[in-house]
């Protein structure tokens, strides 16, 4: 397998560009995606190659342009809708939840909505509460949607293509802290988009995570290795549907679990994963499932408070040590 080094941002752009090249029905629509090049510069330059008919700037009206996307998808197009951040997507929640997610079911399977919605998500850039929240779990709650969370450059590169081939609405969450991270991009996807992947093998404790927390979990696993604790790191990749088989296989091996989720603790996706483990892996457990989530506050603006609110490597290491010592 050949590889090339790209930033996560470049990998996303390559993915969009390939989709635009391969399929005439694909277009990108959202606030500032065209002339400005995208709020996070992901679509910079695409308007020059593909023109304003396929790279479409919209007014500040999330409900409106997401609704247009749904209509276009129903009409046979393959729209990629960019919502600037997940925080603003709440304005389009009605379109996503009540239209995109339901139409196939309400039409008795007569109409699919082959829509892909991309959203920036996550905290860590001092953008304050209204630009930093993690609402992935809201979407992972909705039947009829698929929810992806690419954490690596390779996933950033290929998940869009996989999502576009899906006949139903798929939401892709792109963590803002990953955009500048560079890494190897493989020449094809590592797995089906709905499959979770073990990013590091281990035998003592499973660190289950996704998106922006994957690298924290991997760093923690490295530190834990020095302390003699073998941590397995599992990247969920797809938040809905969850790849339960990969989760239970890991728990069967390690017997201990820490879930790291940038969402708030209460009602978190971590809570859902924990419940799945309780139902399906209870008899493999040697300790209570642990959750490391964001503190239950609106994400603070000051850097030190923002860092304190988010899951951090040190917390993971400490919790894993306590778990191994039998203190939890």
């Amino acid at each position, binding site marked *: 397998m050949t590889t090339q080094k790209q930033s996560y941002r470049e990998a996303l752009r390559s993915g969009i560009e390939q989709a635009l090249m391969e399929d005439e029905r694909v277009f990108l629509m959202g606030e500032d995606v065209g002339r400005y090049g995208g709020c996070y510069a992901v679509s910079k330059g695409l308007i020059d190659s593909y023109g304003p008919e396929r790279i479409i700037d919209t007014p500040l009206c999330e409900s409106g342009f997401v609704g247009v996307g749904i209509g276009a998808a129903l009409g046979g197009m393959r729209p990629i809708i960019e919502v600037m951040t997940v925080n603003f997507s709440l304005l389009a929640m009605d379109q996503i939840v009540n239209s995109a997610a339901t139409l196939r079911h309400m039409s008795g399977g007569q109409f699919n909505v082959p829509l892909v919605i991309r959203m920036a998500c996550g905290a860590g850039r001092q953008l304050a509460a209204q630009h930093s929240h993690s609402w992935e779990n809201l979407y992972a709650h909705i039947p009829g949607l698929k929810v992806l969370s690419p954490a690596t450059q390779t996933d950033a590169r290929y998940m869009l293509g996989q999502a576009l081939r899906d006949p139903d609405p798929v939401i892709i969450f792109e963590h803002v802290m990953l955009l500048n991270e560079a890494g190897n991009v493989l020449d094809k996807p590592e797995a089906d988009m709905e499959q979770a992947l073990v990013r590091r093998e281990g035998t003592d404790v499973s660190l289950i995570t996704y998106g922006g927390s994957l690298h924290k979990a991997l760093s923690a696993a490295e530190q834990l290795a020095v302390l003699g604790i073998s941590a397995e790191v599992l990247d969920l990749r797809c938040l809905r549907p969850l790849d339960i088989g990969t989760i239970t296989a890991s728990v069967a091996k390690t*017997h201990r679990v820490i879930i790291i989720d940038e969402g708030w603790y209460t009602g978190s996706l971590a809570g859902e994963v924990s419940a799945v483990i309780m139902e399906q892996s*209870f*008899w*493999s*457990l*040697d*300790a209570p499932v642990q959750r490391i989530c964001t503190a239950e506050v609106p994400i603070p603006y000051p850097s030190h408070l923002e860092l304190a609110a988010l899951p951090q490597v040190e917390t993971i290491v400490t919790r894993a040590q306590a778990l191994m010592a*039998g*203190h*939890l």
Partner: protein
Amino acid sequence: MTQPILTDITMPSLGADMTEGMLVKWLVKVGDIVHNGDIIAELETHKGIIDMEVYQSGTIAEILVQPVTAAPVGTVLARLQCEAMSDAADLPLPDVVPSITASSIPEPLLAEPLTAEIAPTEISSTVPSPIIPAVVETVDAYSNVNGSPIVRKMAAAQQLDLTNIIGSGPHGAILLKDLPQQSATGLPNMRRAIAVAMEKSKKKIPHFYLSLNIDMTKAQSWLQQVNSDKAPEQRLLLIALLLKAVAMALRKFPSLNGFYTDQQLQLADDIHIGNVISLRQGGLIVPAIHQVDTLSVTAIMQAVSDISARSRSGHLRSSELTDATFTVTNMGDRGADCVYGIIYPPQVAILGFGKLRKTALVQEGNLVAGDEITVCLSADHRAIDGMLASKFLNALSSQLQQPECL
């Protein structure tokens, strides 16, 4: 006038490393009258099965924990109804007792001296109300075991008896690492308990070591003389003589007899010598012989035989495991010449006896064949200095030159 008072009987701590124990069996039932020192239950700890003593006299009023259950140290296992005035000497806090009047006894003590949770139908009308007949309970031991799910699953699959395993998890939960074959270090529980105590000792106690060769010629000939007209099972062994000599030397140097706690030396009033006993199944146990300085050599010999037998059969008393004030380890005939022991915290010293050996001794300028033993004292330098420790060894040597006086 006597006031009935309920006293808690709690899970005892049988060593610095013990955080919990397993109640294996009650030897008393509700309504039984017990006296200070009676054995009321069998406990299982890292050290094996231990007989649990009661330290007050009274009537067993309630049994709160049914076997087989692991309980943290301090857990109230049962309640004893004591007669406050008549048995004042036995009460744990005698200075508090006189102030307790009916009006000052807290509500729960008055309201539920004899728990109503015990089925009322079990109470015979002919029995006075404070005494309740025993409620025979059959408890599913497995359901009371606090184990992690994987441990319970493995126990079920491999028919492991979890009741004999002390858990290291929260509330004593048995975790994978507590299972013998799963133990991370491959160590059984006793090995781990020894490991913890010894590691703690070596990390925290600044040990220093002094050794002295002691001429045992006179002691040996005295023993032979004493034993000459005794049946084999009546004969005295050297260890009895050595223990007596140690106790007498400790009387002269009480600084070695006690505990280093709260950053100071706390001298012990009595001389209870812990004896390191190797168990056949592996591991060590260190039961104490009480007030060794007051016993005859013959009585010490009986005590040594008694605790050795009970150590191996698993019937040591809880007090014997907790109240040693000084420890002796003895290599015996087939051991090394010298043993540098590790102090059992929070004691301040341990004395090691090497094997007795024939050697060339210089006596009054002449070379003679004689008996010699090397004793080595390990002492806590926070509590004791070398000069005092040297004097102690020399006092011990002097004692052993006059075996007939012991």
